[in-house]
């Protein structure tokens, strides 16, 4: 990098662009992490059951409220709040599958999708009835420290979101790739019935899949609460749709696809917001969905063959 004044004009220009890019990358990673965590649940459930669980966005919202309860009412510290919220959300996911989806496992998929929409509306209205419609402030679980390096602004919250999401996703990926339970999850997406011939209890694997998906969505709920920092009973709708788009972009049914799709969507949205009027943001996300469905319905990581990963 040039050190003398002569190149200063260019120097400043370049670093300003560089700074802006790093700043946007951080923001994109934060948003993308949240989409990716939620997209994983859509993708995993679709992988094992061929069900698009449209209640998933609302589970993310409920996760926020559960965390609010644990943090404010029970005064659990940050680590315990996260763990207890994940456990409670996992329980909720398992319960929803048990009550609402399992009886429909061999019914036409349309019936199951309509049931999922119904479960989502139930979760919204139930939350509305319990907490009321007004947005609530989410507590700062961690001491919020703002870092500024050379004009780049980030915070302990943002870095925590990015790093913890990454750790959770690597852990999930390893679980799915290396353990026999993970193999069974993948095998289920190939052929639901044959898996039982391997001695695998299909119901248990489906429950584990729901537990993993909903607990990650609840972590995303905590992250949104920390980053924005208000939550409301309808927050799951738009974020849920976006995460669903991320899952489709990555190739629904694929774990790594959902992660990539989340980051891709996060990046596109941040770029759109930076360069276009902010009202374009959602429109762009949906335009991407339509475009992907047209040109590459199986997404970037999905396999084009009939039996999906």
């Amino acid at each position: 990098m040039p050190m003398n004044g002569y190149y200063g004009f260019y120097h400043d220009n370049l670093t300003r662009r560089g700074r802006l890019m790093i700043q946007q990358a951080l923001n994109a990673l934060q948003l993308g992490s949240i989409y990716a965590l939620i997209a994983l649940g859509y993708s995993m459930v679709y992988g094992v059951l061929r069900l698009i669980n449209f209640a998933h966005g609302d589970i993310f919202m409920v996760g926020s409220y559960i965390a609010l309860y644990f943090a404010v009412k029970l005064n659990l510290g940050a680590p315990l709040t996260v763990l207890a919220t994940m456990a409670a959300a996992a329980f909720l996911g398992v319960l929803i599958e048990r009550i609402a989806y399992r009886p429909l496992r061999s019914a036409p998929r349309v019936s199951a999708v309509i049931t999922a929409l119904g479960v989502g509306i139930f979760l919204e209205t139930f939350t509305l009835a319990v907490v009321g419609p007004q947005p609530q402030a989410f507590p700062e679980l961690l001491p919020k420290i703002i870092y500024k390096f050379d004009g780049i602004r980030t915070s302990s919250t943002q870095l925590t979101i990015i790093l913890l999401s990454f750790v959770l996703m690597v852990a999930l990926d390893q679980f799915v790739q290396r353990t026999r339970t993970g193999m069974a999850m993948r095998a289920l997406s190939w052929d639901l019935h044959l898996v039982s011939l391997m001695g695998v209890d299909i119901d248990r694997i489906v429950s584990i899949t729901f537990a993993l998906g909903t607990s990650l969505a609840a972590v995303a709920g905590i992250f949104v609460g920390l980053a924005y920092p208000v939550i409301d009973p309808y927050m799951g709708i738009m974020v849920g749709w976006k995460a669903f788009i991320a899952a489709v972009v990555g190739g629904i049914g694929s774990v790594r696809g959902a992660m990539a799709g989340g980051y891709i969507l996060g990046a596109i949205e941040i770029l759109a917001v930076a360069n276009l009027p902010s009202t374009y943001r959602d429109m762009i996300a949906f335009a991407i969905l339509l475009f992907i469905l047209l040109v590459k319905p199986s997404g970037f990581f999905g396999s084009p063959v009939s039996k999906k990963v």
Partner: protein
Amino acid sequence: MNQPLLQVDGLKLAYGQIIALHEVSFEVAKGEIVTLIGANGAGKSSTLRAVSRLLPPLAGTIVFDGHDLTKLAPHELIGLGIAHVPEGRGIFGNLTVRENLLLATFQRNDWDGINADIERVFSLFPRLRERIEQSSTTLSGGEQQMLAVGRALMMRAKLLLLDEPSMGLAPILVKEIFRIIVELNKQGATVLLVEQNANMALKISQRAYVLENGRIVKTGSAADLRQSPDIRKAYLGDD
């Protein structure tokens, strides 16, 4: 005959309105190789599916080693030592060869034993060893069949239910598969075999049942059936 390992009585099974099995009764003694022969659509696969609990029968009893199988879920059969290699092999194409073998050990935790069994599969089927990390969709039909039998081996099965293991294989591989079935039987596995290739199947089995339109119409020692003119005409390709 000593106390049968598997005893099926009055089995009746339907797909919706279509009755696939009207009345199927047979037994398999410990250590035997028994073949079910029958034309396409006779109900051979349906019989195996009923035994391995993939389909609930309308009537009938299935008793294995003193256990009433109709009370169990499909995944509980492995614990009793029953392995079903289904029609079309049932390989998980999105898993590698190693993962297919490991998945079959889902209920085991004896890792020394598991690793030893993987070695045993590879010594029986050296071609699989070279393809261990390969996605199993890339395997040839013969290799997939080897993998399917290998998986059954990983389950340490006492009773193997094999549905047309020779289907779609070149003659040399058919021989190889039958050789291995005999080998597994010598090592202690009881085998219930379903085959289109009735000639080969009757050669390696002790007894056989003939299935027609969901009913057992004939039974006897494999040697006798091979001599029977009806059987020769219908299933062994005699004119």
